């Protein structure tokens, strides 16, 4: 018997709500009406804010950002499964999730307008890391946070988001390995939006699924229809329950699509077709979820009209807040280099303040 089979693995795909809004009754998660409506509201708000931000960026009123349109189910629904003591470790295309956790739309705008005041922790949620632009690096932070939670015997977990491109980074593999070796309570969610700037998913990795990358680390893994809010919720809830009960980490691949550009500095017409985009617009997660809510009699056209007006007003208010003149303390960066005082920085701060005064005087 020189050759024997030493293992066999499979990867599952889950969809609960199909593209027409039909639900699989057996898999349908039991979520209270208010919770579902909270999720729906966040998805609609994220979409509206995202689209407004595109206009603001084109008008030069905010800086570059990466729109999240089309991925609202993939990143909003998992946060609904989180408990208040769970950690949120994000990348940079989960605006809806951050809104779910208490970030204010005005804060998002301040961040993208180039001020650190926009990346402070929200009042209501302190276990959240700021936007992480170094692709994949946050996965290790989630592994470390989860280690600390386990060490401190807290009944909590770390939920970490990443993109499809991040699965090619060394940090991602180191993080999954670390998390699995120490069996820590972490849930890694890859929003596979099919494109890492111009590189299609098919050229990112030879693997048939991203989910299967968890297999190498002996980690439960699952591919989910990322435009299906119910499936995303259910997958995350099961992973979090397992993590909190000592079952270790999980890797979830959320199959979704980046309907907009990578960032506002990117032009997708250089590398993908209109037809492809149109095909994915038909899988838009928001109308699908709305049909589900309507079928459940949780939602009506009248409520939608009211919500649209409410969200429009909320976004208007955020823009108005962004554009209300306020003083951004010029020497704020000196406040947060270290938690201790050092002469070298005190001297440089004094010099900086003196120089900007002179620059102002010279007009």
């Amino acid at each position, binding site marked *: 018997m020189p050759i024997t089979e030493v293992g066999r693995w499979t990867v599952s795909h889950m969809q609960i709500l199909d593209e027409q809004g039909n639900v699989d009754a057996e898999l349908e998660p039991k979520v209270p009406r208010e919770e579902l409506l909270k999720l729906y509201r966040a998805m609609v708000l994220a979409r509206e804010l995202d689209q407004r931000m595109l206009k603001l960026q084109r008008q030069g009123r905010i800086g570059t950002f990466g729109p999240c349109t089309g991925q609202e189910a993939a990143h909003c629904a998992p946060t609904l499964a989180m408990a208040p003591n769970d*950690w949120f*470790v994000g990348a940079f295309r989960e605006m809806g999730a951050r809104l779910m956790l208490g970030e204010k739309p005005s804060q998002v705008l301040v961040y993208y307008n180039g001020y*650190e*005041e926009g*990346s*402070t*922790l929200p009042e209501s949620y*302190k276990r959240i*890391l*700021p936007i*992480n632009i*170094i692709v994949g*690096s*946050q*996965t*290790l*932070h*989630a*592994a*470390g*946070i*989860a*280690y*600390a*939670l386990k*060490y*401190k015997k807290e009944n909590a977990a*770390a939920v970490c988001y990443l993109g499809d491109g991040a699965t090619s980074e*060394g*940090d991602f593999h*180191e*993080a999954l*390995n*670390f998390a699995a*070796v*120490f069996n820590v309570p972490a849930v890694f969610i890859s929003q596979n939006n099919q494109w890492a700037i111009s590189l299609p998913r098919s050229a990112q990795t030879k693997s048939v699924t991203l989910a299967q990358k968890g297999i190498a680390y002996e980690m439960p893994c699952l591919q989910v229809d990322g435009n299906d809010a119910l499936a995303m919720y259910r997958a995350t809830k099961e992973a979090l329950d397992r993590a909190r009960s000592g079952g270790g980490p999980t890797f979830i691949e959320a199959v979704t699509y980046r309907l907009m550009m990578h960032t506002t500095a990117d032009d997708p017409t250089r590398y993908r077709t209109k037809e492809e985009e149109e095909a994915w617009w038909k899988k838009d997660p928001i109308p699908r979820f709305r049909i589900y809510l309507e079928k459940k009699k949780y939602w009506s056209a009248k409520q939608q009209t009211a919500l649209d007006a409410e969200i429009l007003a909320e976004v208007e208010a955020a823009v108005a807040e962004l554009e209300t003149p306020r003083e951004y303390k010029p020497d*704020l*960066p000196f*406040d*947060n*280099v*270290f*938690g*201790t005082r*050092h*002469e*070298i*920085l005190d001297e440089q701060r004094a010099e900086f303040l003196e120089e900007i005064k002179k620059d102002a005087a010279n007009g």
Partner: protein
Amino acid sequence: MAKINMVQAINLALEQEMAKDPNVIVLGEDVGRDGGVFRVTDGLFTKFGAERVIDTPLAEGAIIGAAIGMAVAGLKPVGEIQFDGFSYLILAQLEGNAARLRARSLGGLTVPMVIRIPYGGGIRALEHHSESREVYFAHTPGVKTVIPSGPRNARALMLAAIRDPDPVIYMEPKRSYRAFREEVPDEEEVMEIGKAQVVQEGTDLTVVAWGAMMHIVKSVVEEVQKARKASIELIDVLTISPLDGNTIANSVKKTGRCVVVQEAVRSYGPASEIIAVINDKALMYLEAPVKRVTNFDVVTPYFGREMMYMPTMGRIKRGIEETLDF
């Protein structure tokens, strides 16, 4: 009070702080059962267990990346990078994340973490095990870089590093690990990070050094003082960043002459920064150009030629004499 070497002194600091604070944990390659390849974490695994003395998979990025997460979530991790040659893998996490989380969250999140890196030449090691690249770390604001020079300050700096609210790169001159012993008090002694130390007062010339160079410089200074009755002030930099420029500048104002001894290659090293600070703050007090005695800007030679390139006692001595005689 016992006479111990630097390895034992760092071990003592770790052991005492771990006994005192359950949030202090150690992680790295072979730091557990094996006690570290240099034995710095020897005995900690037995005393504190596998949960607190973590043998990590072989991935330096994971050591620092996970340590960042641990620190954010309330632990005080002390990570070990086994050798300097492997430390460059931590730079992305250091620059991209560790150094910035405080600023990016306006103080809402902090990274109280120590990364230990045995560094430097002089132990006839295999290639990639002899460099002195402290400037890589010192150039990143938001990170503190410290280098002890002997057992006593190694212990005191380690306690300060663990208790510091920010990420600290703690570089250990491996040439000094077992080179000599010092009295290290049993009761805790903490040294302030960000302060250089005047280890010997003098009036004719200031010698500035750090790490393994300190021990060598001390004997050269002793020799020169005996030979020609010069009064030499000796400064141990201890914190490479943020640099205590005022202690150095004040000394140079008094002596008017200065020699900086740097194990690292010459260009863009800490000596360059020290001389720039003297230029800013004490130029008009100088009676001679500031001399730097350094390694040369070459790819680190294998150990066969290594000692010729590092500052030798002769070069340090000639540097001091030339500056005194200028």
